[in-house]
Structure formats: structure tokens, C-alpha cells
């Protein structure tokens, strides 16, 4: 299903002869694995493992996006404000989420779990903003 959607979106982008329309595919590919988590080993804490996955995912997705923008800035100048926003906020947001994850791992209290969930929500919001922003630069 995932690959089918990717292929359909890519073909749609190619048909419009506009590579910008493929950018959502990149973001979509970044978001999808979060919802396709595999079964955890017995005894593993789902919150902890999913938090670690979210942090790793957020780092990989944002790094990939800003790298793409940096390498193709002249071709896609409209992406720079989005990428700069990610450059400004993502490192701190992801770092904070990672620190909260480590705190929760050390001490699995309800308070630490709440803090972790809040930090993860910030990271997720940032990713969603990047997705919305990249969609907004796609000519309709």
C-alpha cells in the first residue's frame, strides 16, 4: 500500500512535469514508518521504543529534507524558508525529545512519561509543519 501510494504520487508529479509535486512523497515516506512499527519483543516498553523510533525518524527526516534543500536551493528557492525554520527549531526539539526519552528510560515515572509525550508531540508538530509547508509550495 505504501509503495503503491508512493508510485501513484510520483507518477502524478511526473505527469504534471513538475518535480516539486514529488516533494510530498519524500515527506510522506518519512512519516509512514512511524505507523508501521513491527511487533516489540516481550518485556519491551512500547512508549520507550516508539519514542526512540520517533527521535531517530525525526532526525533522519529533517536531515534529509534540509540536505535536499541545500543541494537544490537554486532550483527550489521557495523551500528555503521552510528548511530554515526546520534548521532553527528541529535540533533543539529533537534533542529535547531525546533527553526526555533518556530520562524516561532511567526512571519510568508517570511524570517522565508525560514530559516525554509532550516533547514527542512538539517533534511531530514540527514534522507536520514541514509537510504542510512543502505542500504549500507545490503549484496546483
Amino acid at each position: 500500500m505504501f509503495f503503491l501510494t508512493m508510485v501513484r504520487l510520483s507518477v502524478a508529479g511526473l505527469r504534471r512535469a513538475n518535480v516539486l509535486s514529488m516533494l510530498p512523497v519524500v515527506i510522506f515516506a518519512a512519516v509512514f514508518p512511524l505507523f508501521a512499527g513491527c511487533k516489540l519483543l516481550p518485556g519491551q516498553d512500547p512508549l520507550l521504543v516508539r519514542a526512540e523510533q520517533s527521535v531517530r525518524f525525526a532526525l533522519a527526516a529533517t536531515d534529509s529534507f534540509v540536505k535536499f534543500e541545500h543541494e537544490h536551493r537554486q532550483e527550489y528557492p521557495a523551500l528555503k524558508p521552510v528548511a530554515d525554520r526546520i534548521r532553527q527549531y528541529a535540533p533543539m526539539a529533537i534533542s529535547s525529545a531525546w533527553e526526555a526519552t533518556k530520562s524516561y528510560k532511567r526512571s519510568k515515572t508517570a511524570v517522565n512519561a508525560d514530559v516525554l509525550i509532550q516533547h514527542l508531540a512538539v517533534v511531530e508538530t514540527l514534522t507536520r509543519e514541514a509537510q504542510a509547508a512543502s505542500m504549500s509550495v507545490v503549484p496546483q
Partner: protein
Amino acid sequence: MNFTIITAVIAIIRALVALVGEFRAIAKQNKSLSPQEEAMLDSQLKTIMDPATRPAHWRIEP
């Protein structure tokens, strides 16, 4: 479809392939990270947090 578009499509596909490979590894994670993996993630985050070591693509340029 001109040469510029083909080049850009190839660039996007390459980025996508690299990304999907990385995400598949993340999605396969079924247990908490080991200390070595944690240290690696720590190092990656420190690299982009520190202005002295931050890669060029993470720097905000005018």
C-alpha cells in the same frame, strides 16, 4: 520533459531511496536502543546542535 526535470527527479529518487532504507531500519526496531546505539544518536544530535561542528546543510544562510 527537459534535462533539468530529469536531473531533479533522479536527485529526489536518490534521496528517497536513502531515506526509505533508513526508515526501514527504524521501523524494524523492536527493542530499546543499546548503549552503543544511544551513543551514536547522542553524537549525531551533538553534531547538529553545536555551531562549530554543524554540517553546511544545517546552517542558516542569508
